[in-house]
């Protein structure tokens, strides 16, 4: 074990002014009052409103906000995911359940016959997105995880996740000539 470095911090002594209490309260109130009057000023440009009218006015999330998962789609609308289980392997909450199936198209081979994420159990770490080799799972749906009243409402299955999905810009699988794919 290494040494833990410590740095003693001096406590600032309170002066008579702070100890007498009332003046500091008045100073705080004056800030509040200042905001109040500025925000009811008839000149709108003077107002600086800090309150958000959520949920009437939704907040804008930053671009890299991690929200509900979505499953991306191939050009023909099928699921991009190939059931490689990288996401479910890395998931620290163990909340992704995948069962692989044999796809009719031999150039796709493997697809997720079952893909369920337990959004309640998810800790929104985003590791699944980073682990995916196929850009098949993302968390940029811009929606945060809604509240649930039933446990099983939080099980998002493949089709639900695909509804939030979209096309990926990444090219998948290369071009296969029909003869070779047979």
């Amino acid at each position, binding site marked *: 074990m290494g040494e833990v470095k410590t740095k003693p911090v001096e406590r600032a002594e309170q002066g008579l002014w702070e100890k007498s209490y009332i003046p500091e309260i008045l100073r705080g109130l004056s800030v509040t009052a200042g905001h109040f009057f500025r925000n009811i000023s008839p000149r709108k440009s003077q107002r600086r409103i800090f309150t958000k009218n959520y949920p009437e006015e939704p907040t804008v999330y930053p671009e890299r906000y991690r929200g509900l998962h979505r499953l991306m789609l191939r050009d023909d609308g099928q699921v991009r995911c*190939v*059931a*490689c*289980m990288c996401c479910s*392997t890395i998931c620290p909450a163990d909340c992704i359940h995948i069962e692989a199936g044999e796809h009719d198209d*031999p150039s796709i*081979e*493997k697809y997720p016959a079952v893909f369920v994420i337990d959004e309640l159990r998810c800790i929104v770490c985003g590791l699944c997105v980073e682990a995916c*080799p196929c850009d098949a799972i993302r968390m940029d749906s811009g929606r945060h995880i809604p509240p649930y009243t039933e446990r099983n409402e939080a099980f998002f299955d493949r089709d639900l996740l695909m509804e939030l999905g979209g096309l990926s810009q990444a090219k998948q699988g290369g071009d296969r000539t029909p003869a070779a*794919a047979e």
Partner: protein
Amino acid sequence: MPKVNINGTEIEVEKGTTILKAAAQAGFEVPHFCYHPALSIPANCRMCLVEVEGARSLEPACYSEVTDGMVVETKSERVIKAQKSVLEFILLNHPVDCPICDQAGECKLQDYYMAYDAQESRLRAEKNQKVKVFPIGPEVLYDGERCILCTRCIRFCEEITGTNELTIVQRGDSAEIRTFPGKELDNPYSVCTADICPVGALTSRDFRFKCRVWLLQSTDSVCTGCSNGCNIHLEHFRNEIQRYRPRYNPQVNDYWMCDAGRLSYKEVHTDRLLRPMSNGAALNWHGVTETASAKLARALDDDAGSFGFVVSPQASCEDLFLAKRFIEEVLGTDQLYLGGKPDGFEDDFLIKADKNPNRQGVKAVFGGLNDFGDVDKLIDDIESGAIKTLYMMETHLPADAETRQRFVDALDKLDLFVLQAQHCAELANQAHLALPACSHAETEGTFVNFDGLAQPFEQAFAPHGDSLPHWQIFMRLARAMGQPLTYTFVHQIRDEMFQASDADENGEPAEAQAE
């Protein structure tokens, strides 16, 4: 004995040792694809090139034998350059579809790429394309794009099974593995080709897409498919066996196992008896132990002479040892019968006709098989009323369907039928008491194979449902009947068993060598 210098390490090896083996002894890995210790050496993949001082070109370590005073470099600049070039060449048309490849995680190409190559592809043209999922045999699929043409599979079929199904067709980058016309890769050991294939070109149909290999946990075990007792890696995920893979043991199965044995894990997960039952009603162990001991005690009081016991060669030696003590000390009966599966297919390689893993164990524990009655005698005894109470281990009987039906019909005549088994079969409903026993994956124990070799197996996961190992069930009943047999660990039984057994030529469990 020749002395060689490998990467500066002086080592003395047997005459005729290859550089690859000598390097392994000195502690250096030489990457290799086509070389397999049990097969001939074609030296066709060139992954194992090493630099030998004084030689003009690099030499294949798998093939070249060491000579006295040889100085070998396995990590020189020339070697590293050669390794990178070989890997780049192999990967030229390789699909690298690892996300959908069952080999990913145990793929030599993946591992070697990370360890010896790790450079970007320079190929700017489209890759060569071949048939992806070619059904080369009933148990095995072939992916031509992933194949690196190492010919391990061909050599396996030539040298190990002698069935000669496979060959290479076409040339250059169109070359692929195919079967000879009119043939299929359909021999009793075909899935071994998928084991030895260093990449994901040959894959097992049964294991296909079932589980990623990095999720598997592996337990050293023994196959229960027949009395050969092939050593296996029992690989499981979340309390379920996903596959068996042969474990190297030169005394028993080398690197191989048969396809039927490989699929025998399915029995562990089908038709399981999971709760103790009394006349069809599920009970807990507490309740059933009381009921069972009371009923057995009453049966013994009434007529101890009409008590029969069916011993199973499917159970481990430890289970059998406790069965013997239970029979002798608690029940005091000598009307014993031998259960187990009927004989089946056999060949001159691994597969044995006796489909029970532990007949020799029964022999060793009970001191011979002469005291045991066969199925016909069992049925006759039940029908004639000589047996009124039957205690049966496991559901198998060495009988055809007709005889088995006769047995099932005869069961109605019994006053008390106690079944202690892994499976329900058709017997659990008939049993007055059905006690769930667990499989070899859920406990530890010893099987003695046909050759008299005692082989231990380890516990992979907790017993399914309420099932318990046979020996614990016997212990519970004995305690409830006032004649406790007390053991806490399997190894206590094992020690006592080896002492008691006069068939001590089995000796200690064989140590399996590492691959």
